[in-house]
């Protein structure tokens, strides 16, 4: 397997890239890495204040915990997909100058997103304890769900980033779709609100992100095992997207240095 050998040979690049992403992001700012906690917290506060007024009955038992368990996994998806899409273009400088396996850029993007996500999970735990939800054996599923999400993200950004090198409109389309995607996923509202929504409700229920986010909630809030069938379907879909994304990426990467 040539791919894996390449990536293994360049593991140090992967490591330093992840480190650079995580540390470099907040370098020079006063609060440093604390921002990766503060940002989602502030966001949660905004939704927490606004949404219960806009939508009667938004959320169920505890809207605050409900919000946070949805928003943090969503933020993981949002930031990695949006930075991942532009990452080939953003790294044009080194791509034009040095040879290295280009997929490293995207893998490290996902890994640093994943590390950030796990750090942010600390916030989830703090809230879960503060509101009496505690922790349960289902936490063992957390790495599995996060892995499925990571594979899905990697497949998506392999595809999008390589296309974006050729057609630069894509990043704007993607950022629009991501904004829309948040409303197509039960991040700030409860799925039960969609009971009368017909086709739209069906689509939202089939959204892979919906399945992932509800799985996280099952793990953190409701302490039940996430339903395996839909989760397995998402895993399969993620693998299919990964294979397609990788094939497209490999096909297009030869032109990166000339197109950028």
């Amino acid at each position, binding site marked *: 397997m040539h791919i894996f050998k390449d990536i293994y040979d360049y593991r140090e*690049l992967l490591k330093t890239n992840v480190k650079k992403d995580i540390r470099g992001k907040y*370098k020079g700012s006063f609060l440093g890495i604390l921002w990766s906690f503060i940002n989602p917290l502030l966001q949660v506060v905004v939704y927490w204040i606004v949404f219960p007024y806009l939508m009667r009955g938004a959320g169920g038992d505890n809207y605050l915990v409900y919000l946070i368990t949805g928003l943090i996994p969503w933020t993981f998806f949002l930031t990695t997909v949006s930075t991942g899409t532009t990452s080939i273009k953003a790294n044009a400088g080194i791509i034009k100058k*040095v*040879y290295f396996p280009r997929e490293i850029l995207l893998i490290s993007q996902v890994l640093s997103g994943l590390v950030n996500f796990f750090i942010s999970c600390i916030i989830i735990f703090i809230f879960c304890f503060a509101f009496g939800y505690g922790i349960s054996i289902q936490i063992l599923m957390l790495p599995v769900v996060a892995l499925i999400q990571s594979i899905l993200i990697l497949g998506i950004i392999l595809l999008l980033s390589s296309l974006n090198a050729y057609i630069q*409109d894509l990043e704007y389309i993607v950022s629009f779709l991501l904004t829309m995607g948040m409303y197509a996923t039960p991040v700030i509202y409860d799925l039960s609100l969609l009971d009368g929504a017909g086709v739209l409700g069906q689509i939202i229920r089939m959204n892979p992100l919906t399945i992932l986010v509800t799985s996280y909630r099952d793990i953190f809030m409701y302490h039940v095992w996430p339903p395996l069938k839909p989760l397995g379907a998402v895993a399969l879909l993620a693998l299919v997207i990964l294979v397609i994304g990788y094939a497209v990426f490999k096909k297009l990467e*030869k*032109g990166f240095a*000339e197109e950028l």
Partner: protein
Amino acid sequence: MDSQNAIEVRNMYKQFKVDYDKAHTLKDKLLFWKTSHVEIHEVLKNINMDIKKGETVALIGTNGSGKSTLLKLMTKIIFPNKGTVETNGKLTSLLELGAGFHQDFTGRENIYFNASIFGLTRKEIDERIQDIIDFSELGEFIDHPVRTYSSGMYMRLAFSVAINVDAEILLIDEILAVGDQHFQQKCYRKLKELKESDKTIVIVTHSLDVVKDLCDRAVWIYKGELRLDGDPIYVIDEYLKQVAIDHKEEKKKAIAEGKHKFKAAVFIDAPKDFATIQKDKGTLVSQGWQISDHDQAVFKFFLDGNEICGIKRKNRQDVFEAYQEAYAGDMDPDAIGWQVNLDLNDLDLGNHKIDIQCSEPDGNILADKSIQFTLE
């Protein structure tokens, strides 16, 4: 691929699309996908070559001949349109130094980033880091953020990393332009060391002395085609002959179009400016050299404003060699130097002035120089 070879190039073609109005956005692509006029520029045509392990090879050619593109193809940054480029062994390119440096991190951290781009593992970098720091001569600055570096320090650090990576194949594009004289010599010594340790080195350079001194073999790329491949001295000689021919033709064309600007250079070796000369010496030998690309250029020598006749021409091989690319085909080595013997007995004591000038036949001055001397 032959295991004896480090690099194999077979029937390789490379084209660049020169897009005049490049469609970057979706709208442009949809609207203009038929009308956009793209010109295909063939940069390299049917290149075949083998570079054996342990060889030091120079790629020579004029600007735009495609030699840098060939080097980029070897690094696998760009890919051929037809044919293959294969490499065997760990490869480092010194095409662009400092790729991937992060401004906010220290020099030491950047060594790790940069070396990891070249595919080194943590352990391998740890082993080399002291060598890299020593080679860069950055001293305590190594722990300062890279954004505080001068451009020279930046390049030194980048070069030190690249050259200490210990690759089996090194691809170098005009690197000896890094840093000051001292650092350049150090790089040069390091390259020789690498050459002796059986690394494969491919260099693109315009400095032909380096080629003669360092390389076992020179490959001359002429207008995208491989013209000659062999011993550097012969290849360089043929290359310079061709440069001279092309140069002459270009000049002829430019003259015909009335666009050519003639150029010249003059120099006075003796006496030195503001020199003090003893009158009792009798004669003062003044000499120097003059070159021009105008074949009817006139050289004149003035002492205190009066033209002096009796200029002797002399052979100046050293000047000829220095200018053989810039003035290719325009110089006669036997007529570059000039010498004038001045009779000091006719001169008054005090300050005197020497003017020399090289001009076109119609009097337009191409180059001039003047110095003063004092007679005692």
